[in-house]
Each structure stands twice: as C-alpha cells, then as structure tokens.
C-alpha cells in the first residue's frame, strides 16, 4: 500500500533520474581525465623521440645507445627499444613485448603489454603506449610510456565519484524515510479528520501542527472552508426557521381576516373592504418573498448582476430627493453632504436599493424624536474608498447587536412595533459584499447618552 503512494512514486522517479545523471557524470569526468593524460603521454614521448633522433644524427647509433642506456637507468624511466631491421632487439630496457608492436611505425593506437628486465616474475603485466620510428639505417626505435599512472588516476576518480554517489543515495533514502513517512502520516491524519467531517460532524477541523508549512497552510484553508460551510449551513437552518416563523404570522392574520369577514360580513361593501385588506396583506407577503429572493440572488454572486461604471453622487442625490417628502411628512430633517463626481464600478439598481433601505430605516428609527429628528446623507472619498453614509439621531443599535441586525428576519425588540420585514439590512449587507465593499455601523454621536443615533457606512472600493 505504501508503495502506491505519490511520495514513493515521486521518490523512485527522482532517484532514477539522479542515478542516470550521476553515472553520466562519472563516465564523462573519468573519460576526460584519461584523454588529457594520454595526450600528455604522447607529447612527452614525442619530445623524447625527437631528442634521441638528434642524438642519432650527430653521434650515430653509438651515441643513441649510450643515451638510451643512461635514460633507462633513471627511476620511472620510459621504455626504449632499438631493434634491427629483422626485428631482433639490439638494445633497450624491455625484455619482452607484445608481438607486432614494432612492425608498425608511428603511434600505437591501443595499449600493449610488455615486460621489463628489472621486474620480478610475479609483478603484474604492464601496459604502455609507444611511438615507433624507422631510423635511416633500417633499424627501429621505440619510445613508450607505462600506463600505470593514468590508469591509477582514472580508477581513483571513478572510485571517489562512486563513493560520493553511494553516500548521496543512502542520504536520500534516510531523508525520504524520515520526512516522507512523516508527511504520509500527516496526510493520513488529515484524511481521517475529513472522513469524520464527511460523516456529518461539521465542527471537526483538520489537525494543525503549528510549523506553518504547506501542510499547515492547506489545513488552515480547508478549515476556513469548513468554517464557512458550517456558518452557511447554520445560517440556512436559521433562515428557514425564521421564514417559517415570520411568514406564518401574516398568513395566519390573512386567514383570520377572511374568517372574520365570512362570519360577520353583512353586505357587499364589508366583503369588499375585507378583500381589499387581504390583497394588501398578500402584497406585503409577496414583497417579503421578493426581498428574500433578491438577497439570495445578490448573494449568488457577481455573475447575477451587471456591473458598470456609475455615478455614486447621482444615486445619493436621487435617493435623498426621493425620500425628502417622506422625511418631511414624518417630521425628520434630512441634510446632505455629497461629494460631486464620485464614480465606482457597480450595479446602479442595487446600490440605489441599498441606500434607500438605509435612508428608510434612518427616517423610521429617528421619527419619534420629531421635531429634533435628523438624518444626514453623506458621500465622501478616501484614498481608495468611497463612503456613502446615512446617520440619524435616533436611539441607535447597541454595539452587541450590530452583527445581528444584518441577519435575515432579525428585528430588535424595540423595532417590533414598526413596519418592516427584517430583511432591509440583510439586503444591504449582501449588496455590499457583492460589490466587495462592506457595511459598518457606529454610533452617530458616541458621547450622547440617550440618543447616540446610528451611522451606517457603505464603504466601496474605488
């Protein structure tokens, strides 16, 4: 089973590649060194031959033989042979030589074996390279060099490279064993945790070791996904509970009204009034459903809404103007401070809807303070933001409840007696996240004890 894991397969593949590279390297380096050494040998031999040739030309065969005799006695001397035209060895330091070497002039292409006078019978056979020239009197002169040194050097290079390679392989195996196995064990732990999650325990999280490596980062992002799923799931459950609860109330009311009309209605006019009220209530229900649908469409993401360049200042002025008579009727003074020509990417309808929800709320929740009730609509730009804010001087939202009010159907106790479906701020929140902006609440006047008011800020990126 272990052999089938990705880690093992990858390790094997890398090991093979590494081995091939290393072998190529060994052969290349050793081949290169032996060629360099051979070249050197050839050069030395050639120089010596030229020297001896000069000696022959000045002193004839006698001087040549005495030269060779002297040179032969030096330690580590080259090989020398002077042979008669019939091939018989006349002088030199070589006792025996591979047959045929002397027959050819020039370089011996391949190493040949030979034996020296000085060596004892049990010494191994030597190999050498040599050059043969034909002297003018028909004799042959051979100068050669033993290959013991280059051969030794080459095997030394090969040996050390092989040793290094072996150590690397051993090291890699050890490292793989410790690191690879450790990684495998962590993956194993992660898959066990995900099996539990799959089994339905959404509160399970993947283990995090704290080393901040890629496993930890993977676990962290998977955990973040899990947390998101859990909260969405929780939200969904809450929403369906709330929908069931909040829609039951108006439906019951609708039903009761119909029942009451049937029981007590006398003439057509009574029925007509009852029916008209029922139509109005159904319309209200439809609006609630529309708002719910709108929120989920907006939450479904940017693919659902067309984005374009829009004039935020114009939207702010439009909505302010749209709500001005309503505010005036409610005894609320609306003031505006709108920066001109602020443009962002977005959906005009949705932003208009969001702002109108906020203005509607601000008027609704400050109206009881008339004639002191005030609502301020402002638009200003920061370095890379555009902030569209609506502030009122009503009773505000306690800090602890501010995260709550954007949830669907959440209505604070003190607002229960006012019209509304508890979806307005949820929609604003959804619209802001569609625009990759955010909705923030703060007290409009934090120092005021009784009437802190509320400032809702829609913060857009520019």
């Amino acid at each position, binding site marked *: 089973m272990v052999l089938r894991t990705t880690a093992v397969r990858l390790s094997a593949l890398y090991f093979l590649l590494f081995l091939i590279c290393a072998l190529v390297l060994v052969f290349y380096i050793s081949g290169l060194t032996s060629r360099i050494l051979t070249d050197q040998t050839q050069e030395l031999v050639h120089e010596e031959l030229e020297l001896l040739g000069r000696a022959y030309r000045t002193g004839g065969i006698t001087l040549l033989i005495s030269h060779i005799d002297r040179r032969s006695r030096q330690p580590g001397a080259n090989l020398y042979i002077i042979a008669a035209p019939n091939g018989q060895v006349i002088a030199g330091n070589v006792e025996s030589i591979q047959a045929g070497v002397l027959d050819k002039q020039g370089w011996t292409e391949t190493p040949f074996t030979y034996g020296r006078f000085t060596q004892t019978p049990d010494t191994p056979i030597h190999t050498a390279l040599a050059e043969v020239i034909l002297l003018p009197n028909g004799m042959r002169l051979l100068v050669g060099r033993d290959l013991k040194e280059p051969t030794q050097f080459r095997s030394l290079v090969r040996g050390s490279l092989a040793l290094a390679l072996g150590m690397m392989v051993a090291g890699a195996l050890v490292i793989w064993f410790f690191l690879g196995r450790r990684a495998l064990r962590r993956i194993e732990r992660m898959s066990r945790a995900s099996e539990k999650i799959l089994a339905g325990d959404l509160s399970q999280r993947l283990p995090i070791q704290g080393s901040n490596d890629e496993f930890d980062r993977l676990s962290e992002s998977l955990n973040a996904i899990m947390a998101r799923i859990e909260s969405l799931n929780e939200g969904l459950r809450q929403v369906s509970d709330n929908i069931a609860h909040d829609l039951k109330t108006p439906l019951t009311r609708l039903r009761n009204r119909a029942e009451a009309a049937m029981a007590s209605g006398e003439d057509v006019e009574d029925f007509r009034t009852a*029916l008209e009220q029922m*139509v109005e209530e159904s319309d209200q229900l439809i609006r609630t459903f529309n708002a719910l649908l709108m929120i989920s469409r907006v939450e479904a993401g940017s693919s659902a809404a067309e984005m374009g360049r829009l004039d935020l200042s114009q939207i702010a002025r439009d909505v302010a103007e749209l709500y001005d008579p309503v505010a005036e009727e409610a005894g609320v003074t609306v003031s505006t401070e709108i920066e001109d020509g602020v443009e962002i990417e977005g959906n005009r309808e949705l932003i208009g809807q969001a702002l*109108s929800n906020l203005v509607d709320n601000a008027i609704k929740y400050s109206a009881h303070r008339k004639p002191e009730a005030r609502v301020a609509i402002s638009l200003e730009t920061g370095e890379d933001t555009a902030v569209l804010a609506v502030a009122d001087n009503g009773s505000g939202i306690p800090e602890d409840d501010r995260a709550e009010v954007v949830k669907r159907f959440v209505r604070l106790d003190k607002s229960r007696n006012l019209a509304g479906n508890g979806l307005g701020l949820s929609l604003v929140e959804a619209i802001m996240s569609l625009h990759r902006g955010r909705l923030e609440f703060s007290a409009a006047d934090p120092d005021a004890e009784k009437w802190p008011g509320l400032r809702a800020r829609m913060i857009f990126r520019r």
Partner: protein
Amino acid sequence: MSVQPVSCALSKFILERGALDGAPMKILIVEDDLEAAAYLTKALNEAGMVTDHASDGDIGFYMATENSYDVMVIDRMLPKRDGLSIVSALRERSIDTPVLILSALGQVDDRVTGLRAGGDDYLPKPYSFSELLARVEVLGRRKGTRDNDTVYRVGELELDRLAHEVHREGHKILLQPREFRLLEYLMKHAGQVVTRTMLLENVWDYHFDPQTNVIDVHISRLRSKIERDFDTPLLHTVRGAGYILKAES
C-alpha cells in the same frame, strides 16, 4: 381547475378607468401555464380587451407573425422556444408591436436582458393583475403617442413641455423639477392608471422596491399643488393599483 375571480381592486380599477374609446385592444398572451393564462384572459376580457392565447413558443411566434396585435404579453420561459428569442426574432422581422415580458427567473438583471432582447416592458412574477393591466394599457396606447405634443392638456390643466410651465385655469403653478416630470408622465398617460412602480421606473428611472410609500408622498405633494386652489380634483387614487389623472367627466 377553476379560474380565480378577478380581484376587487381590479374591478374598481376598470370602473375608475372608465370606458375605453374606440376599438378594443387586441392582446396576444403567450403563456404555458394554462391556469395563469385563463386568469389573464378573463381579466383582460373584463377590462374590455380582445385576447388570443398561445401555449408554447412556436405557436406564439407563429401567431405573432400572422396576426396583428396591439400588445403581446410573453412569458419568458416557454416550451419549444423561449420568450426572449421570440421577441428578438419579431424585432428582426421589423414587427415592433409592444411586448410585455413576464418572468419568474431569479436574476438581478432579468429586466435588463429582457429589455435588451427587444421587450418594451418587463414584469417579474408574481405580479399583481392591476400592475399588469396598467402596463398593457400604457403599451397599447403608445401607438397614438403624445411624445410629439409640446403641450399636454387635461381639463383646465396645461403643461408646456418646452417652457417647463404648468397652468390651471390660467394661473401659473410652480413645480419642482421632479414634480414637473411626475406630472408630465401622468398627463402623458392621462385617463390611464399608472402604478407606483411605473412612476418610480419612468420618473426616477429606478426599479427597486422603495419599502415605504415614497411615491404616495410625492403624489400628495403634487396633488396639493395642482388641486389646492381649485374645486375639482384631477389626480385620483385607484385603490390597490395606483393613480389616474383625468378631468371629472
């Protein structure tokens, strides 16, 4: 399945609107939901219109090309051929009968795609019937449009579109720019019911749900300006539907 009775708001709507002048409007309904189609047919007939019904896209397209209608009401999701492709095919053949697109699709920009395909108006389901009827009437009357008139007149009320002035019985009435546009739209469709959403769409150019009765307050402001010093009311509220501007008959 029984056909639902037309709502009382609607009958009042028909009552308020008064008799239609001239030949009845001819409407093509392309809708695959037979119950909805039957309801629509009954209600439009009660409103004095003549209707044809097609139950799928192919028949709908055939009828739209063969006969001539004043308005077509086309559902967006239809068997065989979807509503938007019918509309664009009609426009390619230079048939520019006004089309009202109905849709239950759940997208934010349905309206935009619907209008882009060549639709003249768009109504999301579920719609209230008075909303649909008001829109069909406005579309149907568009042919004899008053777009080119420079002065609109309703009774003694006069609106000069070039001079941006409003007079009633010779007295000048001062209006804010938005009030002027509101009155202009109402006068352009004088004698027709216009709904709150139609006003928001055409006067403010927004299509969202304004939560509270914002439009009503604008209307009552306008009403007080054009009616305060005069005896006869001109701007009437149609319960459950919207408003109608007409001289008392």
